[in-house]
């Protein structure tokens, strides 16, 4: 594991002063996580590359769009990338020009070759914790959460796709999220509910 060197904040200050080497360091730090997330959503390498490119060039051209008070840089990059990827997925779906990516087994979430925690300064322990937590919830709940979060589907669409009553997908998502939360709370990864 690399020694933690320059902080994200210091790098962002250099980005603001137009130092491309700072962008390169940030790319090295976060590109794998961003690419992996977008690839999971779009299931297509070249489309994923486009989103990653867009996200990092946005950081370069509009560094002011990131506000450090609203969270860590890694989370922000992932959030921007997630939104862009889901947008694309929905546009693709609505145009129906392209077939949807193959649905994948939920086991992928806990599969080997998951993100190296060292990719994510500040999120590393959490990344391991969320994978452990996901392994502990029922696969059907995990699947419903994934279909919403990574495949851009509403609970109504999930119920239709799985041919289940309307309330079932809803319940699975709620139960799954609550179980995840309680595991993560117990591990001290997320804050306790009052």
């Amino acid at each position, binding site marked *: 594991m690399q020694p933690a060197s320059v902080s994200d904040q210091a790098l962002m200050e250099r980005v603001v002063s*137009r130092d*491309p080497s700072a*962008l*390169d360091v940030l*790319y*090295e730090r976060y*590109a*794998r*996580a961003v*690419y*992996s997330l977008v*690839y*999971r959503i779009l299931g297509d390498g070249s489309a994923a*590359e486009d989103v*990653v*490119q867009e996200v*990092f*060039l946005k950081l*370069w*051209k*509009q560094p002011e769009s990131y506000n450090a008070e609203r969270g860590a840089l890694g*989370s922000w990059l*992932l*959030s921007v990338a*997630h939104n862009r990827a*889901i947008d694309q997925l929905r546009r693709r779906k609505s145009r129906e020009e392209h077939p949807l990516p193959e649905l994948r087994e939920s086991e*992928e*979430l*806990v*599969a080997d*070759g*998951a*993100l*190296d925690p060292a990719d*994510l300064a500040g*999120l590393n322990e*959490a*990344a391991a*914790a*969320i*994978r452990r937590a996901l392994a502990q919830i029922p696969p059907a709940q995990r699947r419903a*959460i994934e279909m*919403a*979060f*990574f495949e*851009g589907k*509403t*609970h*109504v669409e999930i119920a239709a796709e799985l041919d289940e009553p309307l309330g079932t997908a*809803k319940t699975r*998502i*709620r139960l799954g*999220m609550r179980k*995840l*939360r309680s595991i*993560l709370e117990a591990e001290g*990864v*997320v*804050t306790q*509910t009052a």
Partner: protein
Amino acid sequence: MNCAEVAELTDLYVVDALPAEQAEDVETHLATCSACQDDVDHAWEVAKLLRVAVPGIEPPSSLRTRIMHLAATEEPTLLRPWAVAPRTRSRPLWSRFPARSHDFRWAATAAVIPFAVSALMGLEIVALQREVSATRSEVESASLALTRSRQSAELATEVMGRVIVMGGAMATVQGTELAPTATGMIYYVPSSQDAILVADGLPRLYGGDVYQLWFVVGEKRMSGGTFNACEDGRCLVVAKAPMPLSSVDTIRVTTEPRGGSDVPHGNGYLWARLKAT
């Protein structure tokens, strides 16, 4: 929706599983209920972690090369001209311009920040700027050579640098019948407030009149400051709009008495449409 109904949907909301209409209902409630917002923030902590729970895949190394190349060079495609109105000599736009000045909602916040940059010339900068590879120091030396003061040159350089580096836009400037030979360009970054006007062929003004630049948004006209053209009819002006230029419809230049006017009274000489219609 009340708190209990929102609580039922919080987890679905954070994983984006709600149909748009339902999500909007939740958001409407959240806007006024900090207790429910706290619950959502809490649920968000879990959802955000899901983003790093995907299988790790190495992006191709060519992606890094491409991104760094684009960042370093800022490809010329980033400089795209906005749709420009066709050059026409019938000029209904301008004739609609003045008159109802009492209608202009003239906010104090739209205060004028004039930067009358007297200039010897800027068309060379245009040429430089078209070669997007121009470095900051190249633009700086060109600006310095072309303007009378170091301060003006620095200002122009700073704005032009941003236009080049951040991916700017440009719009063609056209002359009215009072300035039929006038041509020019406006350079700006849509998300920022600074614009550079470079124009050629402006008539010399007499009797103490000055040119005044206006940012037009709908019915509002906001001054961008006054300036004088050089003896050769050229000008380079850096003007600051009171809002991001992405919301400005057109830029106009009128003649006004020395010191400028609160609202445009004089004749129009130049105009440029920033927004595509």
